[in-house]
C-alpha cells in the first residue's frame, strides 16, 4: 500500500521530485514566454545574417545567446517569482514540511535547464544561419559559458525580487534593467561608443558574456578581456546572489 499517514519529515528526494515536476510543468505551460525567449535570439541571428557587416559570427551568435539568457533568466524568473509571492503561492508552500531552500532550488534548477535548452537551440540555429561549423569542444565551452551567463542573470533576477517586493514594480524595474544591460553591453562591445566605453562595457554582465561567447567561438581571441569577463561574472554572482538571498522575503505583504 503506497498511502501512509505522513508523520515524520518527508524524504527530501520526494519533496524535490514533486517540486521539480510542478515547476517544470509551470514553465512548459508558459508557452508564450518560452517562444519569446527563443524567438528574439533567432530573429537577431536572422537579421544579422542579412548584412554580413555587423560583426563576426562569434560576436553575433554570442549576442543572440546573451539576449536569450538575459530575457529568460532576468525577466522571466523575477516576474514569475514576484507574481507567485504576491499571489500567496510561496506562503502556501511554506506551511508544508518543505525546506525553503528546496522551493527556491527547484525553481532555479528548472529555469537553468530551460536557459541551457534555449542556448543549445540558438547555438545550432546560429551555426546554420552563419554557415559556421563548431567542434564538439566549442559546443561544450559555449554550454559552460551559457551556464555561467544563466547563473549571472538568475542572480541579478534574485537580487531584483529581493530588493523589490511589488510584482508590478519588479516587472517595471526588470524591463528598465534589461534595456540598460543590453544597451551598455551590446553598444559598448561593438566599440561604436568609443574605446573607453568599450573597456567599461567589457566589465558589465552583458558585455562580459558577449566577450566570452565571442572568444569561445574564436579561441585565438582569448585575452585579458575574457579573463576579466570571468572574474566579473563570478563577482556578479557572489554579489547579486548574496543580495537576493539576504533580502528576499517570502510573505506577500
Amino acid at each position, binding site marked *: 500500500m503506497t498511502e501512509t499517514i505522513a508523520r515524520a519529515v*518527508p524524504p527530501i528526494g520526494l519533496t524535490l521530485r514533486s517540486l521539480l515536476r*510542478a515547476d517544470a510543468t509551470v514553465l512548459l505551460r508558459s508557452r508564450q514566454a518560452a517562444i519569446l525567449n527563443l524567438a528574439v535570439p533567432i530573429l537577431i541571428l536572422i537579421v544579422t545574417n542579412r548584412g554580413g557587416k555587423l560583426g563576426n559570427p562569434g560576436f553575433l551568435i554570442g549576442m543572440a545567446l546573451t539576449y536569450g539568457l538575459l530575457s529568460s533568466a532576468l525577466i522571466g524568473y523575477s516576474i514569475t517569482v514576484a507574481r507567485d509571492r504576491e499571489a500567496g503561492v510561496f506562503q502556501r508552500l511554506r506551511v508544508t514540511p518543505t525546506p525553503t531552500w528546496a522551493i527556491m532550488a527547484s525553481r532555479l534548477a528548472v529555469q537553468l535547464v530551460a536557459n541551457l535548452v534555449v542556448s543549445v537551440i540558438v547555438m545550432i540555429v546560429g551555426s546554420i544561419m552563419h554557415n559556421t561549423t563548431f567542434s564538439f569542444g566549442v559546443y561544450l565551452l559555449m554550454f559552460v559559458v551559457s551556464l555561467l551567463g544563466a547563473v549571472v542573470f538568475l542572480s541579478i533576477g534574485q537580487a531584483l525580487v529581493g530588493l523589490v517586493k511589488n510584482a508590478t514594480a519588479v516587472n517595471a524595474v526588470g524591463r528598465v534593467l534589461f534595456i540598460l544591460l543590453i544597451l551598455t553591453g551590446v553598444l559598448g562591445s561593438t566599440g561604436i561608443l568609443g574605446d573607453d566605453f568599450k573597456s567599461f562595457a567589457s566589465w558589465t554582465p552583458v558585455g562580459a558574456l558577449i566577450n566570452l561567447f565571442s572568444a569561445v567561438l574564436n579561441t585565438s581571441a582569448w585575452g585579458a578581456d575574457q579573463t576579466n569577463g570571468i572574474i566579473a561574472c563570478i563577482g556578479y554572482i557572489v554579489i547579486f546572489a548574496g543580495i537576493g538571498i539576504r533580502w528576499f522575503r517570502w510573505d506577500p505583504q
Partner: protein
Amino acid sequence: MNEAERPTVLEVQDLVVRYGQQTAVDGLSFSISRGEIFGLLGPNGAGKTTTLSVIEGLRKPDSGRVVIDGVETLHAPLAVKAKLGVQLQASSFQSELTIEQIARLYAGLYGLSLPQRQIRERLADVGLQQEITKPFKKLSGGQQQRFSLMVATIHNPSILLLDEPTAGLDPQSRRQLWDRIEGSRKRGGSILLTTHSMEEAQAVCDSVAIIDHGRLQAFGAPKDLVAMHRDDPRVQAVAHGDVTLEDVFIGLTGSAIRD
C-alpha cells in the same frame, strides 16, 4: 474517553508577537485536545491570523512557545509542519497547474507518493472528478474551498488549521464544508479555526477563545461562555432577547467597527 482524558494536541503558551512597536499578540495561552473543534474568535486586527501564522511556522514569536503533539515548533519546524493541515485565508496555487497536478504536488510535499488513481479518488471524494483538468482559479468558490480542504487533509494531519474557512460561501457550500470538517474530527483530527460567524462557532465548536488586542478575553465551551457572561452589563447592553455567543463577543470586544 471523556474530554479531560483526551491528550493535548496543540499547546500555545504565553505567546507574544510584535510588529515594531505594536504588540499583535500579547501573552496568549490556550490548548486544544485530540478530536476537539476549537474556535479562535476576535474582531479584525485582534491577532487571530498572527497567532495562526506562528502555529503554522510562518512567523517566529517574540516570546512564548507552541507545542504540537509534544514537539515544539521552533525546535523541529518541519516535523511540526508535517503534523499540520493548513487552509490559509486566501489559498493560492500555481495558476498554470491543474488541480490534479496540484494535489499530486502537495501529496509529495507531505511525503505521500500517491498514484494517479488515488489522486483522482480523492478529487472524486470532494466532487471534483469533472474538474481535474482545470486550474484552481477556474473553480467556483465552493469548489475552491473543497479542494483547499482536500489538499490540507491529504496526509491525515493531527490538527487542521482553518483561517475563515466559510467566508464567502453560500449556505449549501458552507454546510458541505462543515460536514467534511466534522468527518475529519471523527477520524481523530483536531480543528483550530477562525471565523467571524458567531452562529457557526456556537453551533460547531467544542470550545472557543475570544481574543482582542492580542489578549485572551474569554475561553470555554460556547454554552458555558454564554452562561458565564449572561449577567455581564456589557453583554446585557447589546443583547436582544436571549443572550447568544455573538452578544458575549460584542459585549467583551465592544461595538466599534474595526478595520
